């Protein structure tokens, strides 16, 4: 195992640290709360000569992603970072990045989308980008954010994948909160991410190419099918990289974390920081003899539907937590995907949705206790009063 250092850093510091150790060729970024500090810290690394990165200050997030795409297309290892409306502003370029098969890695600090203007934690931003073709890794805390950013480089650049990766963490709750974590040393990161050796890029005069040309209906579909295959391959690569990272650091990463799930009768699915709070609630319930469990989803894109179904097949009631509302009138994005994943089991598993924490609304251990209480009631009565409920809203 590698040399590690126990530190206490905020989520933003941890991510900036990972970026520093990765030492990308280009970072083009624009500030937006709560991401700003990542770029601020990174730019001081640049100013101090601690990285070799070409730092491009741009005038908007649309330009940030455009410049990052340009750099990546030119064969550079390129990164950027954003949140909320910043991610929304770069929306069209997200699709371009993924469709051009560029292995960009971007931390996204989850924040609510306007309007009204809210700077707090909400998953609407990354969930809103779920169809853009980006791989999505969700992080419970600063340690996971740090580890995910490093692994993301290997996942993105793998020849069977070549897709951009977004690594999320909760705005303010993780990004601005200082926590204990372990960082690995510079050489270990350098060796783990290796050198970026693109097989084709725009700055190779001996092998000239055109990227992103006009693509009519006689070819576009085939290119999209290729892209879909890459996303399918990503699952295998994510697991391989996660295993390798585990050998290096002692922390192995998979598609999701199962917490007291194996014999659970009621379980919740949850992403990011609320999972930590929920684990405390699960422990308290277990002490009372309740069979509570939790599945913390790490990989949302690609969506590991077979593995999720397998992990939940014995559970009687599943409460899916969504920290975003897709306004589909049919629950949030995690809910519809999980419910659909369970369809083929042809089992009578009750699935309900709790939309929570929008715009940074706090959720505490006692809230999860109440939610598990609701799930237990559904288990004993067999009745679902509300398929979708809004936990914590004043009503």
């Amino acid at each position, binding site marked *: 195992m590698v040399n590690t250092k126990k530190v206490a850093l905020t989520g933003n510091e941890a991510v900036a640290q990972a970026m520093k150790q990765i030492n990308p060729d280009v970072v083009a970024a624009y500030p937006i709360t709560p991401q700003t500090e990542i770029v601020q810290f990174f730019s001081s690394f640049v100013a101090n000569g601690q990285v070799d990165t070409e730092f491009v200050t741009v005038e908007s997030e649309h330009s940030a992603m455009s410049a990052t795409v340009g750099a990546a297309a030119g064969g550079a290892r390129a990164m950027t970072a954003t949140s909320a409306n910043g991610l929304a502003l770069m929306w069209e370029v997200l699709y371009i990045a993924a469709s051009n098969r560029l292995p960009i890695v971007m931390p996204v600090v989850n924040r609510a989308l306007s309007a009204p203007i809210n700077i707090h934690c909400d998953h609407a931003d990354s969930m809103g980008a779920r169809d853009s073709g980006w791989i999505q890794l969700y992080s419970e805390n600063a340690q996971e954010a740090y580890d995910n950013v490093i692994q993301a480089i290997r996942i993105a650049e793998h020849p069977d994948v070549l897709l951009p990766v977004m690594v999320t963490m*909760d705005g303010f709750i993780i990004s*601005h*909160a200082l*926590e204990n974590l372990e960082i690995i040393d510079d050489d270990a990161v350098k060796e783990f991410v290796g050198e970026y050796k693109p097989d084709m890029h725009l700055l190779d005069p001996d092998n000239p190419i055109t990227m992103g040309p006009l693509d009519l209906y006689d070819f576009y579909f085939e290119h999209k099918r290729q892209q879909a295959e890459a996303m399918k391959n990503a699952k295998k690569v994510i697991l391989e990289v996660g295993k390798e990272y585990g050998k290096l650091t002692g922390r192995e990463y998979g598609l999701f974390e199962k917490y007291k799930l194996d014999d659970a009768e009621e379980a919740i699915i949850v992403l990011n920081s609320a999972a930590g709070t929920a684990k405390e609630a699960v422990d308290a319930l277990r002490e009372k003899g309740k069979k509570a469990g939790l599945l913390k989803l790490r990989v949302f894109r690609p969506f590991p539907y077979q593995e999720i179904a397998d992990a939940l097949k014995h559970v009687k009631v599943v409460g899916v937590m969504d920290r975003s509302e897709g306004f589909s009138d049919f629950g949030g994005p995690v809910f519809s995907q999980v419910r659909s994943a369970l369809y083929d089991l042809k089992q009578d598993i009750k699935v309900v949705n709790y939309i929570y924490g929008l715009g940074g609304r706090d959720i505490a251990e006692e809230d999860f206790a109440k939610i598990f209480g609701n799930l237990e009631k559904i288990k004993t009565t067999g009745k679902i009063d509300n398929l979708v409920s809004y936990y914590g809203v004043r009503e």
Partner: protein
Amino acid sequence: MAKTLEIRWHGRGGQGAKTAALLLAQSASQVGKYVQGFPEYGPERMGAPVTAFNRISDGKIRVHSSIKEPDVVVILDPTLIGATTDVTAGVGPDGVFIVNTNRSPQEIRKQLGIDKGKVYTVDANKISEETIGRVIPNTPMMGALIKVTGIIPYEAFIEDTKKQLEKKFSSKPEVIKGNLKAIERAYQEVKGE
């Protein structure tokens, strides 16, 4: 499960409440504690009331919810007492208040309007002005907090703070000395009942 100490800091933007919470968390983590340090998540401005929080524990901290019932409240700016932020909110009967002021614990207790718990005071403004040369109460208040709670050993705290200050103020040794003196004085001078 390990007991977690929950601390809430009240200050004004620019007084270093957030920095104090993060510095404390850093030091506590260096002596082997599990920590969290985070500001209240509002847009911060100079002069506006700011709240920051700490959790310190011997066991891993997994919750990421906000702190509603702090065990200890540190008030960097006494003009916040009775202002729109309720500095006593959520504090139970065993709660401890540590206030930066030149008034006595009894006077502050009256101002806070509480009859249970403990109230400690220290004139961090005066101490910082005399040791660092300007009014910056956060480092001395940390010394007072360490004395009152005993949450981490004082020597270890001084060691780590010295290292952190050396990183931040490498070109200004008087600032480092001043801050360390400020912490020591507050550690000695904090009083309460």
